[in-house]
Every structure is written in structure tokens, then in C-alpha cells.
């Protein structure tokens, strides 16, 4: 087990290292990264001074080593627009995004898993067809479309819920639904597949032969076994929800890191954008590491296979 975790941890470290490198390379796509870091209309002297100050006139390799060194000290640079550390700007927005992601995950799990169970129990019937239409809708409606439609129906036409901002818990409802819809579809599909797999096993037939009710077998035995793949999906979905927040937060004017990312691109504050991309990617790598380790803990076949 320890060997498996160590190997997987090494993989994750390599992945994070790779992410840092890709972000470094992308930031230099434009030729001169200094131009990305100055406010619009800056004078040539200022640009030249900043280039020297930030060391962009040195060889790329030296810059790269320097970049990694400052990251290891959690020194992510100072926002050129607001003139405070970029990390502080991002940190102030994190609680909002965490709240939104939690709301979305609650909806995705709370709606998706019961749908998946129902689809597996009544597979082939009209209920499954109806529910698979719901799942397909969740999967195909882009978040900005479902977000705006939710605003139109519940905010404008019915006037039940606020259409933007982050005032109270009521304001959390619509963005959570919009963000959670895609994950809901994923959970429903995964739960259905996992349960259908379990239903084909011998212990289910044995239970039926002993006269247990189908519902009793599903709720007492099948769900427990089917939970393993579904739980690990939950960890992976956290990363997807954070990435999806970029669009949903823009639609709902929700003051999290997703909205901050787009605002920072518009104000050309690229160090802030860089912090957000690094942060979400590291969470992404971290959660998939946790998912794999959890999976290996529950199911010994995985760690023994390596």
C-alpha cells in the first residue's frame, strides 16, 4: 500500500511540476511577458524598467529557475494593477468559490445519485427513458445557457430568487444549480453503471432466491458495493467544478476566483490569472491523487495490480 501511495504521490508531483512549466511556457507565448504585466498606456521607460526589474531580459533558463525558486517560497508576484501580492487578491475570493462549489456538489450528488439508482432499478422502462433525457439535458446544456435560463425563469419571470451577486444563501441557489448540472449528469451515469454491474453478480441472484425484495437487496447490499466508484468520482468532480466556476461566476456576477480570473484578464493583470490557474490545477491534481488513494484503500485489487 505504502509503495502504491508513494508511486502515485511521485506522479502527482511530476504533474504539478509539469503544470508549472506549461504555465511558464504559455506566459511567454506572446514574446515579451513584460507587455502582459504593464497596465495599458504605460510608457516605454516604465516597460524597460519593469523588464529589468522582473528579469525578463535574462536567458529563459535563468528565468525558469528563478520562477520555480520564487514559487517554492510561495512568492507569486505583486499585482501590477492593485500593487498588492497576487496571492492575497486571490485568497480573498476563495471562500466564495468554495461555497459555490459546495452548493453545486450538494446538488450534483443529491439529485444525480437518486436518478442513477432509479435508472438502474427500472432500466428499460419509461422512467429510465425519462430520466436519461434529464441526464442528457444536464450534459448538453452549457452552463452559461442553463445559468441565463434559470435567471430568466426564477429571477425575472417568477421573481423568486436573486439574479446576481452573493448576498445571502438564496443567492447561492441558482448558480449552484447551473454549475452542478453537468456533475449531476456524471453522477447519475456513474451510479447507474455501477449499480447495473453489481446487479448482475451472484450474491444478488442468491438474495433473490432466498426471497429478499429487490428494493431490499439494492438498498442493503448493492448500494454499498456500488458506492466505491461513485465516491472516487466525487473527488474528481471537485476539480471540474472549480474550473466550471469561471463561466458560472461570470454569468451570476458571483465574486469568486472564476470571476476574478476573467476580470484580471480584462485588466491585463496576468500574475493574478497565473495564480488562479496554478491554484485550480494543483487542487485538480491533489483531488485525483486523493481519489486514487481512496480507491486503493477500499479495493485491494488496485494496489496489488501494480
Amino acid at each position, binding site marked *: 500500500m505504502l509503495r502504491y501511495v508513494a508511486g502515485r504521490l511521485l506522479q502527482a508531483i*511530476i504533474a504539478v511540476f*509539469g503544470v508549472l512549466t506549461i504555465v511558464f511556457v504559455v506566459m511567454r507565448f*506572446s514574446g515579451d511577458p513584460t507587455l502582459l504585466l504593464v497596465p495599458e498606456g504605460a510608457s516605454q521607460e516604465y516597460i524597460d524598467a519593469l523588464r529589468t526589474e522582473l528579469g525578463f531580459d535574462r536567458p529563459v533558463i535563468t528565468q525558469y529557475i528563478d520562477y520555480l525558486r520564487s514559487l517554492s517560497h510561495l512568492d507569486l508576484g505583486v499585482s501590477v494593477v492593485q500593487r498588492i501580492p497576487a496571492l492575497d487578491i486571490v485568497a480573498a475570493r476563495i471562500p466564495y468559490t468554495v461555497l459555490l462549489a459546495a452548493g453545486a456538489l450538494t446538488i450534483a450528488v443529491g439529485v444525480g445519485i437518486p436518478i442513477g439508482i432509479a435508472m438502474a432499478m427500472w432500466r428499460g422502462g419509461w422512467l429510465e427513458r425519462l430520466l436519461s433525457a434529464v441526464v442528457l*439535458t444536464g450534459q448538453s446544456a452549457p452552463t*452559461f445557457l442553463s445559468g441565463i435560463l434559470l*435567471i430568466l425563469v426564477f429571477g425575472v419571470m417568477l421573481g423568486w430568487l436573486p439574479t446576481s451577486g452573493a448576498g445571502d444563501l438564496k443567492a447561492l441557489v441558482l448558480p449552484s444549480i447551473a454549475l452542478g448540472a453537468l456533475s449531476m449528469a456524471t453522477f447519475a451515469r456513474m451510479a447507474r453503471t455501477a449499480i447495473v454491474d453489481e446487479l448482475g453478480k451472484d450474491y444478488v441472484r442468491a438474495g433473490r432466491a432466498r426471497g429478499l425484495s429487490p428494493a431490499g437487496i439494492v438498498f442493503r447490499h448493492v448500494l454499498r458495493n456500488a458506492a466505491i466508484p461513485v465516491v472516487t468520482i466525487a473527488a474528481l468532480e471537485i476539480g471540474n467544478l472549480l474550473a466550471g466556476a469561471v463561466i458560472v461566476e*461570470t454569468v451570476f456576477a458571483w465574486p469568486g476566483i472564476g470571476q476574478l480570473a476573467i476580470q484580471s484578464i480584462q485588466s491585463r493583470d496576468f500574475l493574478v490569472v497565473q495564480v488562479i490557474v496554478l491554484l485550480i*490545477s494543483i487542487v485538480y491534481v491533489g483531488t485525483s491523487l486523493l481519489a486514487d488513494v481512496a480507491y486503493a484503500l477500499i479495493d485491494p485489487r488496485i494496489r496489488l495490480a501494480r
Partner: protein
Amino acid sequence: MSLQATTSLRRTRRRVGRLPVAIVIVGLILIMIVTAAVLAPWIAPADPTRQVLLMRLKPPGTIAAGGQVYLLGSDELGRDLLSRVLFGAQVSLLVATLSVLVSTLVGVTLGMMAAWFRGWIEVIVMRLVDIMLSIPAVLLAVLTVAVLGPGFFKLILVLGLTRWPRYTRVAFGQTLQVATLPYVKAAELAGASAARILFRHILPNISGPLLIVATAEFGLMILFEAGLSFLGLGIQPPAPSWGSIMSVGRQYVERAWWIVAFPGGCLFLLVLSVNVLGDWLRDRLDPQARVR
């Protein structure tokens, strides 16, 4: 009607009848959207960028004084929404098609090379795939577009170059399997070059699974283009893109629902159709999935 014609008609009907109803419906939707996109310059009632400020935010069905009918209404600058949606279909399909082509080309070539040559090429390529897949694709695209600046070709390049790893994984796994088959060994012994073996002999045999990936990615690319344009990072105004039309529509949603509803509805139908078709293809081509 001759006997032969009747049988061939019956055969055709039987063949069509074997398709599930849902596939026929989404197929028709796809054909309609593609036709509308191709014919946009001829069937659009107006120039999609022509502004008529007197006709701002008019509801669907409004008839202007000059006799022009705004079938789907007009936007915030008095442009005909139907024309913008038609030309938007062109943008959407073109960006998705070209970026899928770019990522297929890059991904499949790298995947086949990694499986054929093994060694350090495999290590580098497959590690890079792992890393690329550990950055959320939306974020990578947002960052790259932000650095490069928006634009039609840059958008295709960004989407193509951020989405190749999935093809690489599939091409790699499939090539490994096919490469052990006797006919490949025979081609190798006959002195065929690596490029010839990979593209002439292996590629046709692994194209089924690749087609499944490409279909799923095609739907995703449509969403990515619309999403980036919605965020103001994709197709730039005044060029019509469903995403950018909807981002304006978001601002006017309280007064003019149609600006969001029509491009949004088209986008939804298009992605839904591609997804349904993709699922069906996967079930047909992958016997393991069919059992379930």
C-alpha cells in the same frame, strides 16, 4: 413500379427502420443546422452586422417600416437576430471542425509514434499527456487565449493544441495492440517505412475508437468556442458567434429574452445531437459497451 424498384425501396426502408428514432431525429437536426450554416450567406434575410438603431430590441415577428421582417427579433444594436444566429452556426461548426482536425492530427501522430518507437519517445509523450490532462482544459484555454489575444485562427490553434491528449491516449493503446498483428509484421519485413506502416496500415484499423473520441470532442469544442466567446475571449464582435450573442443577451435578459433564447436553443440542440450520435456510435462500435 418494377419488382426490383420495390425491393430496393423496401430494403432502404428496412435499413432506415433499423435506426433508432432518436438517431433519425438528431440526424435531421444536424443536417438542418449544417445546411443552415452552409447556406447562411444566401438565406439570411439581412447582413448580420448591419445596425438599425431605430429597431433596437424588437421582439420576434416585428415588421420594420421598410418591410423587413425580424423573424427572431433584433438585438441591442438593431441587428437581425435570425441572420446573426445563421452566421453564428457557421462560426460554431467551422471552429469545432477545424480544431478537432488540428487536435486529431497532433494527438494521433504522437500517440502512434509513442506506441511504434517506444523508448524515450513514449516516456516523453505519455508523460506530457498525463500533465496536460491534469490541467482543467477550460483554464488552459482561457490562459492561452488571454496571452495570445482573441481571434478566429488563434482560437482554433488554442483549442486544437489543448485538446490533443485524449486522442494520443486512444491512438497509443490501439496502436500497441494492432502493431503485434501478423500483417503489420509482414509490412515491416517487406521494407515499408514507419510512416507508411503507421498511416497506411495501422491508422485505418484504429480509426473506429478515434472516431468515437472525435465525436465527443466535437461536441466539447462547440461548447468551448461558445464559452470562450461568451467570456469575450473567442470570436470578437461584431462577428456573430452564439456565445458572444448570448453574452450580450445576458445583459438584456430582463427586457429581451429572445437574444439569449434563440442562439442558446440552437447551441443546446446542436450539442445534444452530437452527444446522442456519439453515444450511439460508441455503443455500435464498442461491443463491450453494447452488452450493458
